[in-house]
């Protein structure tokens, strides 16, 4: 069989927007505050919702977006978000 391939042309590297966020963990029932001013990153194809709560892509922590910033490395978030951090604990 004749074979054809076009390799490369991969999608460009994702671009992220950075935010300062409040960090929480889930104690099984509700979110417990851990620390403030954690740098997090959300891919720019998603509309960020300041004040809403996102899950760390690697799992384990939840972040309420506070304000956008424009430099520095940030922990990558999943795009799903909730108005109330406790919503993550009931999943």
């Amino acid at each position, binding site marked *: *069989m*004749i*074979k054809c*391939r*076009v*390799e*490369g*042309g*991969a999608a*460009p590297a994702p671009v992220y927007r950075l935010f300062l966020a409040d960090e929480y963990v889930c104690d099984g029932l509700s979110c417990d505050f851990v620390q403030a001013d954690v740098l997090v990153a959300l891919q720019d194809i998603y509309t960020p919702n300041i004040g809403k709560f996102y899950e760390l892509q690697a799992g384990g922590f939840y972040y309420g977006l506070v304000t956008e910033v424009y430099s520095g490395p940030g922990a990558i978030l999943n795009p799903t978000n909730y108005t109330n951090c406790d919503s993550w604990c009931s999943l």
Partner: protein
Amino acid sequence: MALPASGQISFDDVIIEMSQSAHASYDMPSFSIGLNGLYTPINVNSSNSGKYTTGNTNIALSDFYGYDMTLTYPTGSTLQDLFFNVEPSGLCNPSAMVVFNAGTANTDLELEFSGSVSDFSLVDTAVIYYGKPWKNDGSAIPTNATIIMTDSTLTTGMNYSSSYSYVYNADSGSNIYFVIYGICP
């Protein structure tokens, strides 16, 4: 836009989808094999499998249910099959293609087009185009399409592998076409 998967379809529907051509002839055996020079190549993307005829006799309109001329593969390491959709006793000068969507960002691409002597035994010419390689009447190459590679010396098969500096332009679109043009089987 693909042909519907069922229900009523017209000759006009089929000829337009099969060939993306304004050619006026309802020459079904010819456009169903992508007769070179009059009609456009048959897109043998795996999602079209079974959605076009495999011969030039006893052709029914329902053979084309669900056929989609515009199907593309993404770029990547996966090798895709390219073949004629005609049986050895089919008409002369078929053409077939697979199409890759290279996106809109300029980048270096690696192109591979390969097969053995027997794979190319019914192939007269193998061509890679950037941009849609036919005019609206099914003939010739539009000015906004370019030939990246052409090979008519296939007596030893082909093992083409080369880099291509892909520069997107809106007139040509984002598709890379691999086309085989056949001899009389």
